[in-house]
């Protein structure tokens, strides 16, 4: 490691810190929105709401079968033509929410569907209405079962934010590419890039592993 230029690294590390903030900002709001989308859509699918269900299924197919970068290009460069002008950050957050929403929906839906029908029936036989049954009985269990899947989605979505440099947002990738282009300090720039992503992703990944392990051991199983 001694051939790395440490002066360069200390000089430009703050730039990476700034960029990491943007990456985390986009990931945080995008994932939060994605989760909200997932809760609503999975509930609609679970209750088989007539028309909405078809629309959601179409949305899932569309979102899962197209790359985020292409979605972002369409949002950022395409939509202004019909009068929808969003900032790069907004596009990035909406893009992550659009992509992540379908992944969260699928995860939560399979969680909801894995709950035994008898749970719903015994709640009904105790006089709980649909809302109480969902809130008290079905949703908490489905959430617990979905934890590993949700964690995997979160990690996946954080990684996906790396493409937002494609719409000129100054995230980690953008900074790295910039520094490589300007100073040819390739090794230093890339090392800092890898370290920055490790700092963001490793804790999330470790928490995910711990949660998953806890889930497996505590398992509700009757």
């Amino acid at each position: 490691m001694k051939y790395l230029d440490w002066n360069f690294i200390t000089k430009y590390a703050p730039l990476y810190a700034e960029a990491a903030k943007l990456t985390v900002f986009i990931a945080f709001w995008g994932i939060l929105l994605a989760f909200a989308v997932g809760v609503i859509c999975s509930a609609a699918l679970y209750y088989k709401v007539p028309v909405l269900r078809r629309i959601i299924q179409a949305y899932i197919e569309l979102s899962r079968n197209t790359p985020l970068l292409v979605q972002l290009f369409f949002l950022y460069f395409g939509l202004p033509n019909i009068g929808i002008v969003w900032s790069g950050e907004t596009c990035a957050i909406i893009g992550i929410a659009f992509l992540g929403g379908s992944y969260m929906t699928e995860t939560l839906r399979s969680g909801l569907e894995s709950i035994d029908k008898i749970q719903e029936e015994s709640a009904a036989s105790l006089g709980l209405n649909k809302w109480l049954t969902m809130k008290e009985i079905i949703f908490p269990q489905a959430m617990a079962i979905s934890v590993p899947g949700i964690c995997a989605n979160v990690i996946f979505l954080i990684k996906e934010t790396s493409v937002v440099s494609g719409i000129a947002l100054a995230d980690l990738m953008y900074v790295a590419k910039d520094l490589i282009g300007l100073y040819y300090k390739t090794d230093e720039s890339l090392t800092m890039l890898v370290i920055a992503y490790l700092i963001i992703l490793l804790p999330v990944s470790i928490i995910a592993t711990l949660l998953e392990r806890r889930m497996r051991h505590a398992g509700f199983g009757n």
Partner: protein
Amino acid sequence: MQGSGIEVLFLGSNFARLLEGLWVTMRISILAVVMSVPLGILFGLFMTLQNPIAKAVSRVYLEFIRIMPQLVLLFIAYFGVTRAFGWNWDAEFSAVLVFTLWGTAEMGDLVRGALKSIPQHQYDSAQALGMSRMQTFGYIIIPQTLRRLLPPTINLTTRMIKTTSLVVLIGITEVLKVGKQIIDVNRFRYPTASLWVYGAVFILYFLACWPVSVLAKYLEKRWR
């Protein structure tokens, strides 16, 4: 001809050029998948070895590849390795290499998971029927493993196609780049070109991935 502007897609050879651009990423994905599958099977078997060194090596490889955004890997291969070793890889070669490394890791994990998911009693009952180890693998374990593997392998292909869209960011002229060229050339005559062109790219990707996803889902349902 000043309608919606959708004509820009069909002007001259524009649409054919977009398709050619899409083919560039498809070619990279197909090459990467074709190489990842055999390599991934080997890697998956390697991961099931009881040797602690094999375990540690495969673990580090898998975790690193998995935790890094693919774009970072692409940057390392394209900008980093090129300079560090003085090898002048072109962008497409770097892309195929990175996606193969990534595909191998993912495929390996799928193989390991599929092997592990075969319950012990399948081995036991095969042996109780007097089968040898080879016969147990040949007749019982491998056929079941393959069934479990095929749907996620097909899914890996769609993930690969989607992820190769990143190569535009290391300067490969693929469908997004071609789209940008078309938009730039027609900026004055067709100011709304970007809507139609990027909309078309969106739909083209969808048409490339969706049938493959449907196939994977169908097989998953049938073979469960």
